[in-house]
């Protein structure tokens, strides 16, 4: 034990020990010399005799070294130094290998970082794997976008929720929450804040302690004492970020109060009681505050739906808990209640990725479904992330194959050196170790550069995945947990692991192959070695893998181009959109007056061509599906199962958005309040519900039974892709917002559930228009601010963030794969030409034409390429179905893409083998034969 320690120390201190030994042996020599001289030898003879007696100093030093240190470590050091020297002598080879590996390792580390941060790392709440979201799944009333299973989800009814939280044993806690969006005036500026009204069990269930102050006491959910507020860390910074914020009161104002704030009482002071730590954003990233909100049954017994989250009890599974909840509910309602009986089926923009619940009565027996919070959050991006992971895996494989090929070629040319080392006594194990050391060193260098690349890659990823971050534009574009994505310790560990693994994978084959040098073969001609076949099959594999990636990238890119060039139905250039936040809480009619005045003044700005406002914009995820009732003669006919999406807009909206009128007229100044009701329907509605007749002049009825208002169809507008460029236009109709009744007795929907959206078409740049708009807003309200300022182009671009990111990333990976495969092919061809120089010389000497020689080389390269492409296409055909959910406008087996990729690869391969072919053709038979 003691000796082992001493040896380990000895390994580290060679220089000192060597010097000491040197001195000792010199003394020894001097003593020997003295002795021989005493015995009567002459000085020169004595020295020679002394040296003979002492033996080889170098040998003694080696033995001494071995004795004082750990041999294998010592060898490792020597191997490493030797490897470094060897690699430095071949800088070109080293550079190509290290960069190839760096690309492979870097891409893998970057994507692994994303996968780990998003899918693997648990959410930052204690025991977060037990947190589940609760949904009611109503079969038979499916909605969907044609991708994945169609399901209709609804949040949980409060009455059921109360019963479940009382009786359930599989659930440890149940908490409800609802989205609340409001305006707070901070330092004279109206500021929008998104938050959540939460039931008493919310904070205890999550188990996260506040950073400052406290969370809610159970009694604070009782109306009257519930005017308390907990801030998120980032919101706290806007209040100055110090502990004095506790006890401060804030008042919500409410020009955006509407659909998403029924828990909030405007103009009433709320006391700040606590601040949550950074990174706490439950249930969604936009959470900036929380207020207490008790789940309460509605007085008229209609279901009140709240989003629900629960913590599973020890040992409970989601399935078990769901079954228990179903039983509790069956017990509660003797018959299964179905549907909400909501007349106004306006659905909120889903704070989650779940489809909004909509309109009419539905049938079927609802079931509960419990989904782990993390799955729910990251589910939408999981398949794509796995596809990306597979893609970078393929890139790494190709890199390995390429490097293995290069190493094979190199070790082949190092045969002589290896044989010499074997001849002077290096055992096969020692040789394998030396070659493996070289491979590992290469992989290590590749890993270092790869990690650097990964940091850049993760930045690129975050850049590509960054969106406007607006929940009103749909969370489908927001990448979950993006702020948490980083190259962490796990990713570095992963990089290390794959570096070592790749080093072994690509290093072992050549090492084992050449560790048993066939001494005799050295003397013979090496070109008889079967290496080129191995190189050939490696290239086939490489081309096949690259083909698979290229096909995938081709599909994603084609799909993205189709998506980006699809006609959205409006003209997005030169249109600026925004909302105005006020410090007051106007009633709906007052809001309409504000909007009218504001837009009127905006029109006065010289560069403004037209300005409009409305309840929502294209791509804003606010769906207002209503059943369509037509007056036919004297009869009112409700079109069963044929809803339409209603848009409340100002008269210039269609013009400002550039939505064309295809028949009749648009809305005009004259269609104001008190005038005969008019409506413009879109082409989809005209084709669906008015097929075979002229819609213009017909009557649509608007409003609940008994309060129906007749609207005359005055025009037909073009279709707008309202809910996403990848979704077919839905039937819509446009009402002049001045004609929408605001009388509560009519149970009319709120005019501006999320505040009014303004749109301005102007020749000036967006910044100038925004400044002008801000100034006008301040004239009307001294604390007013603009929020969610974005051009329509930005909004359109935002909606295709993910497809763009997937296309770019897979495209980059495929480009790298293509380059590597072509380099690999070139390498193999060049090497085989070099090895066959003599044979080619003979052929030329016997009368072969240049053309024949070139054809010889090209034929082999084309054979390899064709085999690789065929294999790759076959693989791809089996694999592309995993891309189906990521594709728009083309099928996974798109023939054009497959053919295009094959043609491109064949062309690239021909180019790559042209240079070696030319070299072969220019072989001088005399030179070639003289080399013998």
């Amino acid at each position, binding site marked *: 034990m*003691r*000796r082992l320690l*001493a*040896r380990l120390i*000895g390994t580290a201190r060679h220089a000192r020990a060597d010097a000491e*030994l040197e*001195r*000792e*042996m010199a*003394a*020894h020599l*001097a*003593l*020997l010399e*003295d*002795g021989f001289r005493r015995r009567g030898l002459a000085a020169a003879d004595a020295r020679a005799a002394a040296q003979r*007696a*002492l*033996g*080889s*100093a170098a*040998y*003694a030093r080696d*033995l*001494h070294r*071995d*004795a*004082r240190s750990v041999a294998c470590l010592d060898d490792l050091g020597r191997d490493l130094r030797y490897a470094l020297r060897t690699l430095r002598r071949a800088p070109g080879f080293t550079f190509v290998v290290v960069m190839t590996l760096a690309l492979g390792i870097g891409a893998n580390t970057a994507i692994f970082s994303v996968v780990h941060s998003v899918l693997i790392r648990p959410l930052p709440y204690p025991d977060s794997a037990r947190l589940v979201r609760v949904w009611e799944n109503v079969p038979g009333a499916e909605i969907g976008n044609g991708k994945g299973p169609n399901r209709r989800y609804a949040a949980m009814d409060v009455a059921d929720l109360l019963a479940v939280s009382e009786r359930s044993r599989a659930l440890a806690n149940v908490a409800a929450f609802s989205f609340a969006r409001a305006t707070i005036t901070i330092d004279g500026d109206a500021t929008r804040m998104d938050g959540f009204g939460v039931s008493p069990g919310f904070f205890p269930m999550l188990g996260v302690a506040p950073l400052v102050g406290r969370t809610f006491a159970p009694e604070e959910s009782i109306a009257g004492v519930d005017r308390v507020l907990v801030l998120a860390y980032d919101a706290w910074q806007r209040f100055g970020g110090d502990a004095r914020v506790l006890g401060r009161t804030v008042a919500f104002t409410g020009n955006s109060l509407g659909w998403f704030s029924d828990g909030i009482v405007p103009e009433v002071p709320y006391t700040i009681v606590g601040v949550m730590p950074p990174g706490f954003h439950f249930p969604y990233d936009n959470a900036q505050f929380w207020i207490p909100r008790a789940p309460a049954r509605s007085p008229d017994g209609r279901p009140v739906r709240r989003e629900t989250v629960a913590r599973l009890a020890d040992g409970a599974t989601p399935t078990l808990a769901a079954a228990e909840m179903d039983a509790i509910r069956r017990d509660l309602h003797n018959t299964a209640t179905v549907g909400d009986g909501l007349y106004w089926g306006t659905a909120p923009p889903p704070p989650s990725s779940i489809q909004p619940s909509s309109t009419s009565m539905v049938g079927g027996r609802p079931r509960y479904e419990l989904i782990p919070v993390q799955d729910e959050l990251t589910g939408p991006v999981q398949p794509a992330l796995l596809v990306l992971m597979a893609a970078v895996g393929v890139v790494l494989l190709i890199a390995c194959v390429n490097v293995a090929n290069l190493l094979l070629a190199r070790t082949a040319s190092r045969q002589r050196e290896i044989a010499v080392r074997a001849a002077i006594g290096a055992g096969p194990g020692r040789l394998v170790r030396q070659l493996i050391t070289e491979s590992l060193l290469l992989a290590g260098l590749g890993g270092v550069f790869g990690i650097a690349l990964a940091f850049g890659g993760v930045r690129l990823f975050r850049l590509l995945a960054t969106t406007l971050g607006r929940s009103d534009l749909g969370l489908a574009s927001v990448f979950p947990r993006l702020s948490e994505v980083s190259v962490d310790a796990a990713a570095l560990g992963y990089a290390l692991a794959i570096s070592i693994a790749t080093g072994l994978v690509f290093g072992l084959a050549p090492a084992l192959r050449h560790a048993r040098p066939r001494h005799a073969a050295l003397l013979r001609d090496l070109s008889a070695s079967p290496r080129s076949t191995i190189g050939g099959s490696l290239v086939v594999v490489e081309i096949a893998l690259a083909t698979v990636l290229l096909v995938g990238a081709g599909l994603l890119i084609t799909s993205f181009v189709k998506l980006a060039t699809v006609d959205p139905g409006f003209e997005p250039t030169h249109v600026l959109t925004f909302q105005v936040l006020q410090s007051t809480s106007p009633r709906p009619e007052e809001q309409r007056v504000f909007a009218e005045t504001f837009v009127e003044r905006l029109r006065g700005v010289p560069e403004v061509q037209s300005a409009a406002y409305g309840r929502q914009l294209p791509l804003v995820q606010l769906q207002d599906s209503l059943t369509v009732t037509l007056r036919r003669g004297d009869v009112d006919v409700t079109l069963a199962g044929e809803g339409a999406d209603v848009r409340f807009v100002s008269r210039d909206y269609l013009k400002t958005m550039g939505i064309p009128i295809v028949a009749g007229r648009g809305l005009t100044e004259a269609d104001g309040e008190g005038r005969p009701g008019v409506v413009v329907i879109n082409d989809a509605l005209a084709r669906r519900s008015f097929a075979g007749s002229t819609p213009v002049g017909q009557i649509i009825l608007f409003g609940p039974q008994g309060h129906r208002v007749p609207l005359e169809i005055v025009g037909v507008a073009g279709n707008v892709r309202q809910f996403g460029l990848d979704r077919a236009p839905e039937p819509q109709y446009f009402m002049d917002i001045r004609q929408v009744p605001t009388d509560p007795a009519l149970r009319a929907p709120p005019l501006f559930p999320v505040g009014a959206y303004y749109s301005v078409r102007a020749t000036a740049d967006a910044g100038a228009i925004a400044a002008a708009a801000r100034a006008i807003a301040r004239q009307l309200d001294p604390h007013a601010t603009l929020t969610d300022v974005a051009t329509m182009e930005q909004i359109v671009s935002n909606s295709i963030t993910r497809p763009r990111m997937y296309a770019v990333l897979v495209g980059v990976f495929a480009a790298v794969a293509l380059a590597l495969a072509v380099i690999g092919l070139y390498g193999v061809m060049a090497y085989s030409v070099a090895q066959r120089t003599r044979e080619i010389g003979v052929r030329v000497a016997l009368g072969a034409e240049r053309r024949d020689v070139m054809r010889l080389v090209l034929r082999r390269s084309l054979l390899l390429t064709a085999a690789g492409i065929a294999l790759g296409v076959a693989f791809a055909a089996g694999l592309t179905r995993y891309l189906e959910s990521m594709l728009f406008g083309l099928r996974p087996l798109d023939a054009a893409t497959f053919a295009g990729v094959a043609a491109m690869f064949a062309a690239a391969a021909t180019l790559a083998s042209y240079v070696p072919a030319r070299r072969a053709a220019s072989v001088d038979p005399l030179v070639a034969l003289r080399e013998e």
Partner: protein
Amino acid sequence: MSLVERIEILQGTLDLIVLRALATMGPQHAYGLAARLEQVAEHPLMLNQGTLYPALVRLEQNGWIKGSWQKTENNRDAKYYAITRAGTRALEKQTDRWHRLAGLVNKLLVDEQ
């Protein structure tokens, strides 16, 4: 090659011989030890004197001997090795073992004949 083999056979014994020499003669430098070995073996070329050094390193790393630089009577620098207390104990144990082993090998060799 053959030289290495000879030394390897000697290795265990060489340590023992060095320890024994230091125990009976007191502190010695490598040259003195080599001279003593040649004298005992009555064979001047029995070992390459450089091969003593690995044995010395092993013994020193085990803490059985300790080296220090001193002057010889002819006023030359030399590293003198002295046996330590642990070395003395080890020598007893090793000697004992050697005797037993030698006896066993002897017996086996005799019986085989």
